[in-house]
């Protein structure tokens, strides 16, 4: 398997070259194009949960609930993958665990287990679409960012806005917190943050999808 990233950072696209017997899994809307020789298989995210559980997730999080797996059977082929939004892609060589903000997941080697981590009540306070996935295993993991992507080495407590979070290593512990008063939470837009402690890497996106939606959305006709 060989993965090539092109057109970075603004309009990044990944081309995944598969040899016979290899597969790659991707978020359902990510496929741009593929060799006709590849076989595409659609499944809901968790094999156990099935469609209804998937649908509940869809409604709660805005995240899509289907994954497509592309298989090269007897001949090689390639699949091109791109995120929905403007921004960069990063290829993470997973060996262990990574926590990924759900809208930033693009694809992964199929043996990597993608678990939805509802995380209880606190995550729903994290703002629109803030929902974590836990990727467990070994192999390539493809993530997207809205805007550019920045790697941060955390060695002492660090705070980031929930809308800018892409992923973080499990050696970091996080809590969702308010900064300032309840008043500023509701009126400043800077209210909810992830407070990280421990040591490890985290990745942040240079634009916040919620902020962008907040600028453009009110100009659109009501739904």
């Amino acid at each position, binding site marked *: 398997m060989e993965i090539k990233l*092109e*057109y970075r950072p*603004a*309009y*990044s*696209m990944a081309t995944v070259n598969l040899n016979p017997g290899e597969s790659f899994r991707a978020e*359902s*809307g990510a*496929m*741009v*194009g*593929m*060799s*006709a*020789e590849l076989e*595409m298989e*659609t499944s*809901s995210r968790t094999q156990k949960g099935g469609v209804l559980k998937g649908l509940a997730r869809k409604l709660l999080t*805005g995240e*899509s*609930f*289907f994954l*497509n797996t592309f298989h090269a059977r007897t001949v090689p082929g390639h699949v*091109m993958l*791109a995120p*929905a*939004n*403007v921004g960069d892609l990063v290829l993470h060589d997973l060996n262990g665990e990574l926590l990924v903000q759900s809208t930033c997941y693009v694809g992964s080697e199929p043996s990597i287990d993608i678990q939805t981590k509802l995380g209880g009540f606190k995550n729903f306070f994290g703002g*629109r679409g803030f929902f974590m996935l836990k990727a467990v295993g070994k192999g390539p993991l493809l993530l997207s960012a809205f805007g550019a992507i920045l790697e941060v080495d955390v060695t002492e407590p660090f705070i980031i806005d929930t809308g800018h979070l892409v992923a973080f290593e499990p050696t970091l512990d996080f809590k969702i917190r308010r900064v300032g008063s309840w008043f500023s939470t509701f009126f400043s837009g800077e209210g909810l943050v992830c407070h990280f402690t421990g040591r490890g890497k985290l990745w942040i996106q240079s634009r916040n*999808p919620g902020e962008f*939606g*907040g600028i*453009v*959305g*009110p100009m*659109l*006709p*009501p*739904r």
Partner: protein
Amino acid sequence: MQSRIELNPEYALLEVTLEPGEKVVAESGAMVGMDSHLKLTSQSRGGILKGLARKMLGGESFFQSTFEAESAPGRVLLAPGAPGDIREIELPAGRSLMLQSSAYLASTPDVTLDTKWGGAKGFFSGAGLFLLKATGPGRIWFNSFGAMATQAVAGQFVVDTGHIVGFEETLNYSISKVGGLKGLLFSGEGLVARFAGTGTVYVQTRNPASFAAFLHPFRPVKNE
């Protein structure tokens, strides 16, 4: 005539420099700026009815603008509506390029443009894929949402309909549905075109329907 594509791929801009007697035709609305001595005329190409058919079926503007340098050279700056790249190709006489309707930016006057009905297939399958057929001789400029990748096809290749910019007429295609329950809200998602034959497909690295789906939850909610 000289042309230059600048500021690509993110915000590509086309600059065309016309010698006296030369013209360039562009999608109405594409003009960013021009030398004031150029002559600008708007017309419906191929007559009102044909133009209207294009508008209804192709989703493309009813009117196009022609820029002409009469006695002195001059330049015109043209830009597509969406952020992304611009590509220029030279079409030999009789050779055609099929373009997704919003991908057309400009062409030299001898290039003919026809609505090809999305080959009815695109229209009836709900793919939202409306195609224009541009036939040479001449130069044509077309644009993408995001970057533009070139995919050579020899045999078969599958492309999400929302990522198609255009393709050479030597390729045949059929539309089919993939990927579960997507496309409930926005037409075009979850539909793919399966290309067969030998030729080039131009794909865009972002999908306008996915972008619209991202923005949808941010729309105000109607008061009942």
